[in-house]
Structures are given as C-alpha cells and as structure tokens.
C-alpha cells in the first residue's frame, strides 16, 4: 500500500509520519511537495502536522490553496483515503473536505500533553485495530485545536457517527462535544488533532497511535 505525505512550507511532522509508514511498517512512502499535482499512484495521502505557511491569517487558510490540494480533493472524491493530522486536520476543514473548524484552545494557550482519547467507532479502517470504547493515550500539541461547528453540523456528525475519537475528561482544549477526530460521511477522509505518529515507536514510550496505521494497512490494503 502506497503512502504519500504532503509537505508544505512549514510542515514539521511530515518525516515523523514517513518514519512510521516507511520504516516501521515497511510500506512504500513518498514525500509530496505541495506544488506537485500528480498523486494518482497513492492509496493514502497524509496531510501532516506543523505550521503550514506559518499559520498566517488562520491555520490552514493559505495551504488549502496550494496546487496539491486540488489533487487531494479529487483523490478523496474517488473514494481514496486522506488523513489529516493536527495542522492537516485544520487544512482539511479549510478546504471543505471536513465540516466545522478548529479555533483557539479554550484557555488561549498552546497545549502540549498526552491525553486520554476514546475510540468511538471501529468499523472503518482508521480505527478497526482498536476496540470500541477503548481509551488510548495520544500526544496533542496545538494552540488552535478546539473543534467548533454549528449545532446543525454537530447533529449531522453525531447522527452519522462521524466522530471517531473523543477526548476523555479533561477535554483540555474545550472542543465541542469533546471532538478529537472526525471523518466525512463516506468515511474515507479523516482528520484528528492528536498525533498518532508520535505514539507509534516503542522507543517514544507509547504505541497507542500505531493502531491507526495498522488498521489502515489492513482495512485499505484489503480494498486496494
């Protein structure tokens, strides 16, 4: 299964993701510069964390106009898989692949912590390696990670079970409905604020994030 990791000016978790998919999981992985547009060879596109374009204006607001994003939208439209982590999640909301947005944390400061996250649903590749209701611990590192959407959108998200990850108390950033990660209705586009790639190598103290990549490998691998 082939992974592509998009690199914007200011991305800084791109190599961490590639380390997991290429080195730990032994899957073909290539870095995709944001000015390129041909990603037809990829099964899964990952939009990594970081500070694309220095987060100027709003997180993800400028990155979403990069040439690669048109291809990412098309990739998603074909039903192929797109994962946005942290800044990647923000970019996916800005480009409209996921609803809602991420605003300043409730207490207005950057949060760097390991937090308990509940796995809400496990019938999609993203989470199929976990058990429904399982509490895992994942690192978060963001200043603008508080999920926000209108009541209508929230109702849609909940009605269609699009919330895959939810913060267990304490919901440090104040996200609405404690949302940590959501997918689109089709289930092939997923965005999350926590960093699974930083919890995949045992040397870093936790492998709770590895399930996401392994689930993808099994789930998407079976389809592709």
């Amino acid at each position, binding site marked *: 299964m082939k992974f592509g990791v998009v690199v914007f000016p200011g991305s800084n978790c791109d190599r961490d993701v590639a380390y997991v998919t290429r080195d730990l999981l032994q899957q073909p992985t290539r870095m995709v510069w944001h000015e390129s547009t041909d990603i037809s060879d990829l099964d899964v596109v990952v939009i990594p964390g970081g500070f694309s374009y220095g987060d100027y204006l*709003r997180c993800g*607001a*400028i990155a979403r*106009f990069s040439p690669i994003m048109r291809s990412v939208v098309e990739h998603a439209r074909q039903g192929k898989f797109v994962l946005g982590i942290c800044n990647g999640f923000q970019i996916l*909301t*800005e480009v409209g692949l996921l609803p*809602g*947005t991420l*605003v300043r944390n409730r207490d207005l400061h950057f949060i760097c912590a390991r937090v308990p996250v509940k796995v809400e649903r496990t019938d999609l590749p993203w989470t199929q390696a976990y058990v429904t209701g399982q509490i895992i611990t994942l690192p978060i590192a963001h200043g603008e990670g508080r999920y*926000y959407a209108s009541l209508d959108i929230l109702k849609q998200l909940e009605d269609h079970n699009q919330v895959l990850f939810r913060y267990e108390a304490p919901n440090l950033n104040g996200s609405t409905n404690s949302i940590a990660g959501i997918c689109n209705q089709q289930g092939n586009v997923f965005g999350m604020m926590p960093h699974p790639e930083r919890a995949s190598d045992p040397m870093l103290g936790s492998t709770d994030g590895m399930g996401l990549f392994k689930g993808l490998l099994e789930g998407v691998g079976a389809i592709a």
Partner: protein
Amino acid sequence: MGYETVEQVRIGKYVELVLSAADEDKAREQVDRICDRLLANPVIENYRFDLTESVDTGVAR
C-alpha cells in the same frame, strides 16, 4: 485601569486591500469573494467591507 464603563469587547481583523477594478460592482464582487474564500472563515467569522475610490495608489497606470 479603572475603566468600569467597558461592558463588552470584541477583537477582529482589519484588512486593507488596494484593488483595481473596472467599476464599483466589479470591485464589490471581487472583495466579497476574497473575503468569503480566504480572509474570513464563514464557519466562525462574519465580515463586512467598505469600498473607497482610491485616487493615488502609488501604482503606475
């Protein structure tokens, strides 16, 4: 500071654009689209804008 008269505060962004357009309607249309797609995120932000004809933009024409 003792300013007990302050009842509410709002903080926003203020952006000035110099734009060349054939007429006011065209300018309005462009600015509206720029605000909607880039400068504001309509999910969380409202925007409004005023147009003023610029006589000297410092740009050669």
